[in-house]
């Protein structure tokens, strides 16, 4: 099916990754439980223990079958703890010779449960996430449909087809196994960018292809679910990144467990933006040293809309395929609110830059104003392509009115769907945080569906 997204916003930045792949080699690796939403870790290793690829590092306290495994062969160097002794990061040090792959012997799985237990025991299960809540699904649950978004529309996002170049066969196998996992009654939706290169995905079988066009957030899985198979209370949908489908495919095809993947290093502060192959958790300090010129730069795992700022233990999170570096803002401007603003980027037409149709702007992290109460009431709808009233839903989230949230469609959305609302908000509210916290309370209230 064809879908045209009309509301949304493409933010243009310099620093798109060139189609050039470089390897990243490092000995230090980081795994953070905070990379997985709301996962309470139960540590399974200690400082000094030796681990191989696939050795469980920690399990989820909610369900011990869900484990996050080591992506390298080496030793646990350190366990960094934060407030109230919570586990912040597990630091691993890889052995020098070929530490990234492991041969796993297993019999061909016949049933859904066998596929599930293989994914679980080898640490591939966390690739799957469910909506509502964007958490790792329970191994006992099965979704009403599975979504694979095969493009990313966020600023400077990598091309998925390039990430999977030469891995079409692995992707096909991954989809086949996922189909086996979710069962024949559950449709798999493959969402492609209309008019883009999609060669790697077209070989997939037993799937429904959907073509999306239009601005960001066309590539967000939330937008796609909303258009194709909206979620009501008590229902759940799974989704997975296309590169992770290929990783699952490789595991079943070659019996090799490996967490190698490709990540785009992007942003206006990067000297030569390009793609890097790395293992999940790899310390990216060497890339940052080589590539960043600016003194005051912000390093973001993910894109500028939803990514996480990195400081200690710099690594690209499991669900991100992109690293963005932009300049820190905070420079003060004399009566900036009164000046014509030839170089100011705004969705509103209150700055003259709009008149001249400037294409690229020098974006930085300035908030451009102070926090205020709601005043402008129709800005969010311009960038929010859901049949949901954004303002009313956000108000319900702020007031913790669960009934109203449910009626307005909270189960369909996630914090990332409100990223653009947050960007354009003249009152400088933090909507992603509001929605995430509301979802957290909601999940506590109703239990995991």
């Amino acid at each position: 099916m064809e879908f045209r997204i009309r509301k949304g916003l493409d933010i243009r930045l310099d620093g798109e990754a060139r189609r050039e792949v470089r390897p990243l080699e490092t000995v230090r690796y980081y795994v953070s439980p905070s990379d997985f939403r709301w996962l309470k870790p139960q540590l399974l290793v200690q400082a000094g223990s030796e681990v191989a690829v696939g050795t469980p590092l920690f399990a989820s306290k909610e369900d011990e079958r869900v484990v996050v495994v080591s992506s390298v062969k080496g030793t646990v160097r350190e366990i960094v703890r934060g407030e109230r002794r919570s586990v912040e990061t597990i630091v691993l040090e890889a052995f020098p010779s070929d530490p990234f792959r492991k041969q796993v012997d297993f019999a061909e799985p016949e049933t859904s449960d066998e596929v599930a237990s293989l994914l679980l025991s080898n640490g591939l299960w966390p690739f799957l996430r469910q909506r509502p809540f964007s958490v790792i699904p329970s191994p006992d649950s099965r979704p009403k449909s599975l979504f694979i978004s095969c493009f990313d529309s966020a600023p400077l996002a990598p091309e998925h087809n390039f990430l999977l170049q030469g891995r079409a066969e692995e992707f096909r196998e991954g989809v086949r196994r996922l189909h086996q996992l979710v069962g024949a009654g559950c449709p798999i939706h493959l969402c492609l960018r209309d008019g883009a290169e999609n060669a790697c995905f077209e070989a997939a079988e037993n799937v429904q292809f959907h073509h999306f066009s239009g601005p960001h957030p066309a590539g967000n899985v939330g937008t796609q679910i909303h258009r194709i198979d909206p979620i009501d209370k008590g229902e759940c949908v799974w989704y997975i990144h296309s590169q992770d489908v290929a990783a699952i495919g490789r595991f079943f095809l070659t019996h090799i467990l490996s967490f190698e993947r490709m990540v785009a290093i992007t942003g206006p502060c990067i000297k030569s933006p390009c793609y890097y192959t790395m293992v999940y958790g790899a310390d990216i300090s060497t890339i940052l040293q080589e590539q960043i010129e600016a003194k005051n730069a912000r390093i973001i795992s993910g894109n500028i809309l939803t990514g996480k700022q990195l400081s200690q233990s710099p690594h690209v999170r499991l669900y991100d395929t992109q690293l963005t570096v932009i300049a820190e803002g905070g420079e003060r401007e004399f009566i900036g609110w009164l000046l014509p603003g030839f170089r100011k980027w705004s969705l509103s037409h209150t700055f003259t830059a709009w008149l001249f149709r400037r294409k690229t702007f020098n974006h930085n992290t300035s908030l451009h104003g102070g926090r205020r109460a709601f005043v402008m009431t129709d800005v969010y709808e311009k960038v929010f392509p859901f049949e949901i009233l954004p303002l009313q839903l956000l108000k319900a989230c702020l007031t913790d009115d669960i009934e109203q949230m449910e009626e307005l469609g909270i189960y369909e959305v996630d914090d990332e769907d409100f990223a653009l609302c947050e960007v354009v908000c003249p009152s400088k509210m933090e909507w992603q945080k509001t929605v995430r916290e509301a979802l957290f309370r909601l999940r506590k209230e109703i239990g995991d569906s």
Partner: protein
Amino acid sequence: MSVISHISEKIGRSFEKGRPLHCFHSLWDAVDTFLLTPAEVTKEGSHIRDAVDMKRIMITVMIALMPALLFGMWNLGYQHYLSVGMETGFWSCFWYGFLKWLPLVIVTYISGLAIEVAFAQWRGHQVAEGFFVTGFIIPLIMPPDVPLWIVAVATAFSVLFAKEVFGGTGYNFLNPALVARAFVFFAYPSVISGDSVWIAESADAVSGATPLALVMNGNMAQMPSFLDMFVGTIPGCIGETSKIAILLGAAVLLFTQVASWRIMLSVVVGGFVTGALFHTAGVCPVNGWQHLLMGGFLFGAVFMATDPVTATHTKSGKYIYGLLIGVLAIVIRVVNKGYPEGMMLAILLMNIFAPLIDYCVVKVKVKKRKLNISKHRIKL
């Protein structure tokens, strides 16, 4: 630039917590962010933000009000010299109007901002920019020769009871500028009576009835021409007389997308249709389009009804809200002979009903959503 920010940083230190001047930190913050854009950077969520903020939006509204203000100042002088029978040049008319306007605006800002800053300080908030527009509008919709103490009292009343008791800008449900005007209208009816014109310091002999009152009493012959009403060379409040200036302001607001075109359009449509209906029924001699040029209708439609806080917040709600304002304004105007200018009351009344309209729209949307989801289920 760095010199200014250096100085501001130095001064700012005396307002920090624990310092003697901490009790004025909201005031300092207002002055500081007025001079220099804030240094704050994003912390969580989106790492970049739109350059627009409340200050920019408010200044845009003030720019949109400029044509009406400038014309109003000139017209104030022009009407005065006309009434006393003197012929003077452009600049002396303008200067006369400016001198009339200046004390009004100073009194409004002092009385309103003092309360606003005090509340911000008390709550530990930053001073919200909302009052800059409110305080700018109040002198434009008051009779030009209103005693200053009344303006001060009215402003204080509106800021306190229409805004701050509910939590400040963004939480109010009535338009504060209109509340100030309504306060004067009901508390001091002699200064703002609805049927005689406001010419500053006019000679007694010339003061007469407003066009609206003339029409309602059937004196069509004494009425100024509609061209005069469109251009604005008629007596009245500073802001409301020139329809050309108001339309210029409307163009700015629509072009910058600060005000909702849905509300503006539907107010005008509502007013026009109701006016035309009354005209056809023979109740009122004034035609639909002529109604739009009279009194404060257009000023209300462009600057007051579109206040995003007190208007409806839903898209379809905005059409209903605007339409009802237009209808009610003309109904009050035509039916109530005692107070021909109905725009103020119509907007205030619809401000009160705006949450109800939103509530209904949300309910309808929720039902639609449920239907939509069940349809999807059948399809699959």
